[in-house]
Structure formats: structure tokens, C-alpha cells
């Protein structure tokens, strides 16, 4: 993978702080990054702070980055169970001239304009179509409950508490993912596999 391009991408995101998206490197591993984006204004997601797991394959940027919401989101095109995203530019419409920044901005745009006809989460999509007020209420509720900077940094603290024990950041992330954020369970799991 072209590390030079990733460095340039990160530099560009750093430079343009107003965009409302950012990317953070997880230690030395350039295959696993964390993205952050602010909920778009005048939507149920306004004021929310969303965390996105990013995985890059060796062929990046010729294949799309793999992205998934770590923050729970109520949205027709995002799985309410595991954060999987249905977005064309993350699949066949990807172009190597696109970047992590443009991809995160597209996620922001997706939050602003859902496409219930191409749903990832059928339950949410049907609610979106049949009961718009209820959908808006639920989405706002989830945003207030889950999409907070506190949780995001707590999440970061959890990772830190594991890495401080000497485990690499990537292993910490994987373990936390599999235990749904339970630090003790994650540590036990890591210790067992040692």
C-alpha cells in the first residue's frame, strides 16, 4: 500500500479542520484508522459525534476503504445492529481519485439524505417510510444517547487502558469489538490467547 498517499490524505484532513470530519491513525498500523464525523445540521443527527472504523487493504486506493460505524446510528442505510453501511462509493462506485475525506463527507451526506429504497436495515427503512415522526424521534434519541464526544473518548480510554498493558492498539480494538466494548472481557480474552 502507498503509505505516501495516506500521509498526504491525513495532512490534507488536518489542514481542513472546518470540514467536520477527521481521521486518526491507530499507532503505526496504517491499515486500521478511526474516522470521526459531526452530524449534519438540521437533521436528527445534528450535534452528534460519530466514530467510524476504517480498514484499508493493500490495494488501497484502487479498492475502496472498508468503513463501519462504531457509534450506534438509527438510519435506513446503516445497520442498527453492527454499523454496516450501504453506500455505493464504498462499493462498485469507488474511484481511486476519491479519498478517506471524501468518503467520510459522503457518509455525512448520507446521514442528511437517507435512501430508504436501498436499505441496509429493513426495520429502520420501513419505519422511515411509514412513520416519519417516529423515525425522527428515534434517530434523535439514539444520537443523544450514543453519538457523544464523551462516549467517543471513553471508547478511546478503553483502548488506552488495554494498550497500557502492553497490547498493540490493533489487538485492543479487535478485542473490544468482539466483546462489544466490555474492557474486562476484552482483557481476559487477550490474556487467554497469550
Amino acid at each position, binding site marked *: 500500500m*502507498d503509505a505516501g498517499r495516506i500521509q498526504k490524505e491525513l495532512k490534507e484532513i488536518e489542514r481542513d479542520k472546518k470540514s467536520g470530519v477527521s481521521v486518526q491513525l491507530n499507532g503505526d498500523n496504517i491499515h486500521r484508522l478511526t474516522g470521526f464525523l459531526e452530524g449534519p445540521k438540521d437533521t436528527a443527527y445534528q450535534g452528534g459525534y460519530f466514530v467510524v472504523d476504517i480498514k484499508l487493504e493493500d490495494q488501497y486506493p484502487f479498492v475502496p476503504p472498508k468503513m463501519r460505524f462504531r457509534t450506534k446510528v438509527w438510519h435506513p442505510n446503516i445497520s442498527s445492529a453492527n454499523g454496516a453501511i450501504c453506500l455505493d462509493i464504498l462499493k462498485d462506485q469507488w474511484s*481511486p*481519485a476519491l479519498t478517506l475525506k471524501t468518503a467520510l463527507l459522503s457518509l455525512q451526506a448520507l446521514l442528511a439524505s437517507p435512501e430508504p429504497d436501498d436499505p441496509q436495515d429493513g426495520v429502520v427503512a420501513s419505519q422511515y417510510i411509514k412513520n416519519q415522526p417516529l423515525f425522527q424521534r428515534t434517530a434523535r434519541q439514539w444520537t443523544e444517547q450514543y453519538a457523544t464526544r464523551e462516549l467517543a473518548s471513553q471508547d478511546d480510554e478503553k483502548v488506552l487502558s488495554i494498550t497500557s498493558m502492553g497490547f498493540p492498539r490493533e489487538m485492543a480494538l479487535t478485542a473490544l469489538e468482539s466483546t462489544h466494548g466490555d474492557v474486562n472481557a476484552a482483557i481476559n480474552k487477550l490474556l487467554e490467547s497469550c
Partner: protein
Amino acid sequence: MEDDSDYEDSYVASDVEDYPTSEDGDYGYDPQTEPEISMRRAAYTVLSEEELKLRQQEALQQVMQVLSISEGEAVRVLRHCKWDVNRVNEEWFADTEALRDKIGLVDEQPTGSGRRKESCGICFDEFWVSEMHAAPCNHSFCRGCWKGYVHTAISGGPAVLSLRCPLPDCSAAVPAALVTAVSDPKHREKYHLYSLRSFVEDNQRLEWCPAPGCENAVEALHEVSNEAMDVTCRCGSSFCFNCKEEAHRPVDCETVKKWIIKNSAESENLNWILANTKPCPKCKRPIEKNQGCMHMSCSQCKHEFCWLCLASWQEHGERTGGFYNCNKYESAKKRGDYDAESLKREHARVSLQRYMHYYQRWAENDRARSQALSSKAEANDKKLEVLSEFVATPTSQLKFILDAWAQVVECRRILKWTYAYGYYRFGDNIPDEDTAQKQQQGFFEFNQGQAEMFLEKLNGVVEKDLDNLVEEFKREPGLSEVAPDGSVFVDQASSPERQAVWSKFREQLIGLTEVTRMHFVKLVQELEKGLDQLLAFYSEQPEAEAEAEVEPAAVSTAEASGSATPAQQATAKAPKRSKRSRISSRAAADKASNSAAAFSLQEADSELEAEAGYWQCRRCTVINRDLNSQSCSMCAQNRRGPISAS
């Protein structure tokens, strides 16, 4: 386009002349090696990888010239139109802009000066513009990024053939020349392969030969329909152009598909049948079938029996109605006192049994066909040479043995599929009142049985009899024997005795090959025309019409045969009234006999013999030229009667 058959014919004819390969007589069908029996013959040609590339290039050149476009553009247009040059012209001239838009052809954009630096939109590094590449849209990227883009797309599969500019929202097609310019040899080769595959796979008239390792394709020389079309590749494998299964005419593709699915569904129940051994019906010792012929003899007790029905071979042919009948399926007789449950169980058992009957015969003929194929190869590789010395005859004159094997191979294939046909054509239990169905089944099974009987005989003669003969020759070798008194050479191979034995065998085998072929021609005809139509033809045609139809053909044959073979002369000499008299005698017999189907079988038989100009003894298989005689000139066997013991 108007569907005018005359136009169609001339179109095909001129098309054929355009193809260099066909001038070499390079059609898939070769009467010398493949005794093709099907009536409807397919026009097609076999193309090697090289020929395919040439053909693809021809299409490209044609489109480039007519539309004045680049090769890269021509590839796109042709791919879009499934490599149909006519369709390209139609779509292009109907709405050029719409078509160009749809497939991403853009006008070449000005490049400007190469003597400045620009940032590559993928790696964000700076490059001299002259070192960068772009599709005609002129969105430049550095060579390294192009390479990564193209390689990833090639690894992703044939979709790379529709590759577009990497810039989001630019739909310009990436020309093949650019793809090959930036890719390494391994990826380039893969790209060319995709391109050739698209030429064959998108093209309605082309199909790859499905034989493993074969890289030829078959091209239909006419509009393709979705009917079965058997073709034979240069590699020797035959397949159906329409459904890609092995060649299966005269049976249609639908039946084949159903049958194959059925077989895989029933395969567990049938595993035991696939076992290679069966107990001898007399001494119960296991016997392995290692030759193609169904006439078995137990190595222990010497009992001779039929592998299919396990009946003794002597009785075979006369037990019911005087003809070979182990192809017939007699469904189990139902007794009246079954309760519902056992009736259901009985029904399931009967229907599985019925299926197994057909399956077993299908599978056995399939296996026998493979055996015949390897026997033919073996004969070609060594047996003929050995034989050539024993009978002082050049191998070129022993080709009739290979012809006989080829006939066995082809007949086994047809016979095999007639069992799939029979399974679907006639239901589990045809009610007694459905006389038409019963008659059709009887008619079909008789002809199938006749064909099968001759095939078994042919297989036995070319296999066992020939082997026995060779063994005999081996026991009295003496290619050059030294007499006790000095150096007198006795040439056993060309002795009159041996030559007589050999010439008798030769005549028998050639005759048997021909008779077998004719029986299969009949069977195929029957299935392709439809049993109901054929039976209707035999039973309902008014005499005058029947005669009118027969006579002109017979006359023209007679006129045309200035130097006809004896068989042709015989055909011409065959009594013109035969059909008429047969039909009227049949009508009479119909009233008297309650076995109409069996009767029409004899009719069918005489007709076949009249066509051939001889009848063959069912006991000793000698050819009898006298069509009026009723007993064999060699062994006095009755022409139609049960086979008498020797």
C-alpha cells in the same frame, strides 16, 4: 428483416465461402470418421484459438472502416452489440450520440503542453504531463497509478473490458491500448484472454467446446434457435450447441436437463446399480463386465446371459413375440388386495423400479460407449497392425473395423438417450383404453429393441469374434514356416483357407455395420418426426397419396444412378408398390390382429430391408440379397421366425 428462407439459404452459402477454414473441408462433421445418424444436419465450423483471434480482428477492422473509429472504440461498440457487426451498424446509425454516450466514447480532448508539472489525482505526487497517461477525456494520472488501477481491475474479472476513467463522474472508456501499455505481461495476457472470451461468450453464434483442455470454439453458420444441435469439435468431443451437455440428439434439450437432474436426485438409491459386478444368474458367482457387449458368458459355468435382463442369451429374442425385447419395460402387475398404505409403498417401489430400469440401461450404454471409444483407439494403435500381418492385407484396407467401432460408439450414444426419452415419453401406467399411447410405446420399443439387437450383434462381432479370430490365426502363425525337408516357405497369411475365412468375416462386419446404422437412422427419424405423426403416416395415409409420394423419389434415384452402388441399385429396384401393398395388408391384418404395434414393427422391418436391398439373417447375420426369399441362404433360418438352435 424479412424471414425469407431463400434469402437465408443464399446468405449461409456465401457466408461459408468467405471462411478460409471451410474451404479446407474443415467442418466438424466428417462422414469418414463420424457416422452421424441425425437427419437434421447442423452447419457449423470449428475454430482454434488462432482462428478466433483472426475472426475477432476481422470484425474489428470491418467496424473501424465502416464507422471510421479507432480500434479501442470499435472494441467497445462490438462488445456492446454482442459482436454482431450488423447490429453495430444498425445501432450506430440509428443514434450515434446516444450509443457513444452509453458506452463511454468521448471525443479526444486537447492535451496541451507536456512541458509542465501536474499533480496526479490518485497519488497526489507531481509529474511532468508528458510522463502521464490519460483516456481520450485527457484526465491524466501517473503511470504507476494507472498500473495499479488497471491491475486491480484485471484481477477483478472480465468487467475490466468496460473500464472507465478513474476520475469520479467521468465515464470515458479506457482504451485497450492504454490498458496493455501500462500492465505487466501476466496481467496483459489475462486481459487478452478476457477479450477473446468476450468475443466467444457474448456472441450468440459461438460456443466454447466444453471438453477439458480444449481451446476450440464452434461457430454456427446460421441463426441459432433454442433447439438441440449436436456438433463435434476437432478434439473429437461432441456436444449440444444449445445446452452444452454432451451430444444428445434425437432427444431434446429439455428431456436431457430433466434426466440429468433426476439422476443426481436419485443417485443415492442407485449406487448399488453402479457396481461393476452382478452374480451369474446360474451359478451365482460374481461376474465382472469388462467388455462393451451385453452378451455375457460366465467364466465359471459358461452360462451365457444378457447383462441387462439377466435372461439366458439363447432365449433372448424369442421369449415374447420373437424379437429382442430386454429394452421393454413391463410395469409390475398390481394385485387387488392392497390396503392404502401398502399401495402407496408399492407405488413408490414401482416408480423407483421403473426409473431404475431406464437409468440402468442409460448408464450401461454410456459405459459401453466409453469402452467402445477406447477399443477403437486400441484397434487403431496396435490391433490393426497385428491383423494386417495375419491376413496379408494392408492396414488401409482394414479401416472397416474402425468404421464398425465408430458405428458402435455413435449408436451407443443414441441408444442411451432413447432411454431417457422413453422414461419421460411414456408414463408409469398407460391405461388400457389409451390404445394410441400403447401403440406408440409398442412401436417405439420394438424399433429400439431392433436397433439394440443389431448393435449388440455388431458389438459382439467387432469385439469378441474378431478377438477369437485373431487368437485362431495366432495358433497357426507360420508367416514363413520352414518345411522339414528344407527351406520351403509356407505363407499361411495368404493361404486360400485363411483368405476365405477372412473375407467372410469382412463381409459380415461391413453388412452388420450398415444394417445397424439403418436401424438407428430409423429410430432417430422416429423420435425427430414424432411417434404419433409417423404412426399416423403408416396407418391413415390413403393408398393413392402414399404411392404418389413414393414413386417420384424412386424414379429420380433410378435416373440419377449411372454408376450406382449395388445397394443404391437395389433401392431403385425395390418394388414401387411395396408401400401400397404393405399398407393394405396392414389394414387387413389390423382387423385380424390385436397386436397392431407388433405388426407395424414387421412392416417397418420390411421397409428397411427394401431400402437396403437385402435382408440380414437374424441368426448367422449373413446378408441375403434375395428380397423374396424367406429362409437364410447360409443357415436356413426362417427370415421372420424365432431363432432356431444350431
